[in-house]
């Protein structure tokens, strides 16, 4: 996030290619990791989401040049991410905080 200057688009093709191959590698890695039993399903899910997160960061950060984008846009996306997470986790939490002895089926 640079605030002072207008964003300098990354014209280096090599940089983009690097990100590209990182993304391909990441895809391979997720598939591979999903077949390895890490002990519990949760760990597998965590690893897959972590890799997906990194890949998403690469796409958003470099292909969409978010990391060199202005603060305003980063703020908007930041709030959006926050509201998305609160929607997901508060709902999830609400579904796990029924009065005791409630039966769900």
């Amino acid at each position, binding site marked *: 996030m640079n605030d002072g200057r207008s964003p300098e688009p990354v014209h280096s093709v090599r940089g983009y290619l690097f990100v590209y191959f990182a993304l391909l590698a990441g895809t391979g890695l997720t598939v591979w990791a999903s077949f390895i039993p890490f002990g519990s399903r949760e760990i597998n899910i965590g690893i897959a989401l972590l890799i*997906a997160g990194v890949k998403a960061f690469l796409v*958003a950060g470099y292909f969409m040049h978010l990391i060199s984008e202005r603060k305003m846009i980063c703020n*908007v996306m930041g709030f959006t991410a926050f509201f998305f997470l609160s929607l997901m986790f508060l709902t999830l939490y609400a579904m796990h905080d029924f009065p005791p002895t409630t039966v769900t089926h």
Partner: protein
Amino acid sequence: MDIPYTVQPRPDTGVYNAKMGIWLFLASEVMLFGGLFSAYVLLRVGADAWPHGWLNIPLGTANTFVLITSSITTVLAWVSLKNNQFSRFKLFHAITLVCALCFLGIKSFEYRDKFMHYEITLANGKFADGHLIGKSRDFDLAKKTGSVTLHGYEVDQEVDLMDLHRPEARHIQREEITIPAVEIKKMGNYGPWHNTYTAIYFTLTGLHALHVIGGALVIGFLWGPGSRMWKTDPERFTNRVEVSGLFWHFVDLIWIFLFPVLYLL
């Protein structure tokens, strides 16, 4: 007065109008898919058993490669314009379009596969599962006449169909089995109605596919008739390519989450 900052960035915000607009639009898209992702998490957490390994991982991986490739060609197309190389732009954008079509092709093949895939509850309490090869001419489930033929296998309990990812499941022998209608209690394919997993799978990927189609239409326009603007207003055209590219990357980004979430986990 004309509308300012349609091409040049506004000094204090550093972006031109359309770029601001597309980012705002993407924010709303995040919430749209966010709603569906929340639904996914909730349904999954609430389910007794969540299917595993129901989708074709090699195809999914291939499709991921295709989309990532289309993403880089979009960036490179924009870079080409920035560097004043119009014919390279045409080439890269063409690749993007081919990738988009390829993605949709693979996706529709996968859809078809699911619609051909049947689970049959047998009268003896067992379950048959597999791809439909054909039904006899007089097949009528209501009247219990005729028979169906599947390429698949039988299991004792429905939960055995849930995890096709586990090692034993991967080595199950599939064969052609013919089941007379009298032995069938219930029969249904793996369409969205099958269970909450297929429901969210079809909804999420369907909505994603609509985005791919929309993006492809825009990119196709900018590649074809829209590219005439390069002659009259190159800067504005470059901006348009950038904006459509942002949308395209976003579609890619969604897939990056959809793939592990639906195929692998």
